């Protein structure tokens, strides 16, 4: 299977070096072909969505404590006051 590295790197928001551009397509195609063997299995609708069998758990609608704000903001590369700060997101007018 052919890999459109240009398209994938854009979707994944990744900048690739020239070296990676040469190396990755071959490696990825190998991986995809290897995983692709699974398609030869005769599966039902069920297996198509979920392979691991774990049962459904629903929780009651009762509030549990959230993380402290300082802990959350500490994980962000940049913050100010109560907010996480990121480079301005382009907004068409």
């Amino acid at each position, binding site marked *: 299977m052919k890999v459109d590295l240009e398209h994938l790197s854009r979707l994944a928001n990744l900048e690739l070096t020239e070296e990676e551009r040469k190396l990755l397509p071959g490696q990825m195609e190998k991986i995809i072909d290897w995983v692709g063997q699974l398609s030869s299995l005769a599966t039902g609708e069920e297996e198509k*969505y979920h392979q691991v069998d774990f049962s459904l758990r629903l929780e009651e609608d*009762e509030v*549990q404590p959230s*993380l402290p704000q300082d802990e959350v903001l500490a994980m962000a590369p940049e913050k*100010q006051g*109560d*907010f996480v700060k*990121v480079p301005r997101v382009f907004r*068409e007018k």
Partner: protein
Amino acid sequence: MKYETIIGLEIHAQLLTRTKLFCRCSTEFGRTPNTLTCPVCLGLPGSLPVINREAVRMAIKLALALEARINFKSIFSRKNYFYPDLPKGYQITQYHLPVAENGRLLIDVNGSRKAIGIERINLEEDAGKSLHEGFPDSAEKTYLDFNRCGVPLLEIVGRPDLRSPEEAVEFVQNLRTILQYLEICDGNMEEGSLRCDANLSVRPAGSTEFGTKTEVKNLNSFRFLARALEYEASRQVEALERGEKIIQETRGWDASANRTVPQRSKEEAHDYRYFPEPDLPPLIISEDWVREVSAGLPELPQAKIDRFIRDYQLPVYDARILTGSRALADYFEKVAGLSGSPKQASNWIMREVLQYLKEKNLSPENFPLPAESLAELIKMVENQEITITMAKEKVFPEMVRRSLEEPKSAEVPVPTLELKVAACDPRVITEELGLKKIGDEQALQNIIEEVLEKNPGPVKQYLEGKVQVLGFLLGQVMKASKGQADPQRVQPLLRQALDKLAKK
């Protein structure tokens, strides 16, 4: 050429659960930014989502109300895209198998009912909030509040069955009323708890093929919805008339410029790479659960309208307005039952009560006057204890004023319904304001005699055959009685008195 407009709506309704869809962080609105998050809604490694039972129950409620087919097994999927207010990098939504499909919503079009198809109902999570303006460095930075991340939404995808902006507004209004009746969404468009996107195309009238459609976003009020769709429809018609092709694109409503403007072009359209959410098993809904939810469903707006018309003999117009909210409909039924006059109850609520609510910008559940009190006032008018004018202009406003005073007594320190009803008793108020209708014949006779004595000129004119003067004299009697006389009764008495003078 005549054109037909084709509209399909996609609505997002924020659910009134206490906690988020996949974690138990609170959904409370207006809390300090970034205080309602956890590893699940931030998408931190190793965390696992757990579905909120109440959110599923709400989805079942809406599915039943929209007569949709509930999928006893539905699948959650990941919709992948990068945006800073989506810290996980994907939104958990439904794609392959939604929670419900193939419903319908009824709207009224020129007096007849039309069913608008609902293609699917999805359970999904909301994203966080981006603030692009209002900070000193807003030119370079975007500020993020993740509190809303993971708040449950129902996405309601309508079929392109709507044929005018008015039908679209009617659709959203009816859907909003249903959501409010079901108590699953507050329906506040301005605050974003009900969001609306539209797909719109036009085609020559009579054609059966669809034209190229555009998507119109950012329709966050009924006014904008109608204006944006009207604008977009005429923009497309004008383009076609000029021989241009419609470009399939996303356009946003620019309220300040009063027009729709292109947002992003199709070439940049996202490739969302949907795939089944591996951290969640299929959502299983049992038939028993559906039955239980169905049994607890309230009477829905459309059924209520029909019943009000049938049981209370109300005009369609009244029935539609009175059922606009559950609280208003309940209030009407109480007043109608207690007063025994549904038509009068309707008149009072449609005029006085709604006008008061509009003036004070209140919703019907916050109307202060107990139904018991309004029913009592209606009975007094019906029994001719007071004129309708006095009831409306003097007694009603005073009752409302007193009902706001939250009466307490020494024995009962908290305001109770009984205390409130006693405090705004229309009989007491009528007595206190001296508005009791002059029913006493002698009192009326006295006033009439007085008026005739004071107005010898007009009396002479009447006796000479100028009967129009009767109206003037009647007005003088009403004035002398300070409006407490009943004109229906004054008129014959006045004639009698004049006839007596004529015989002299």
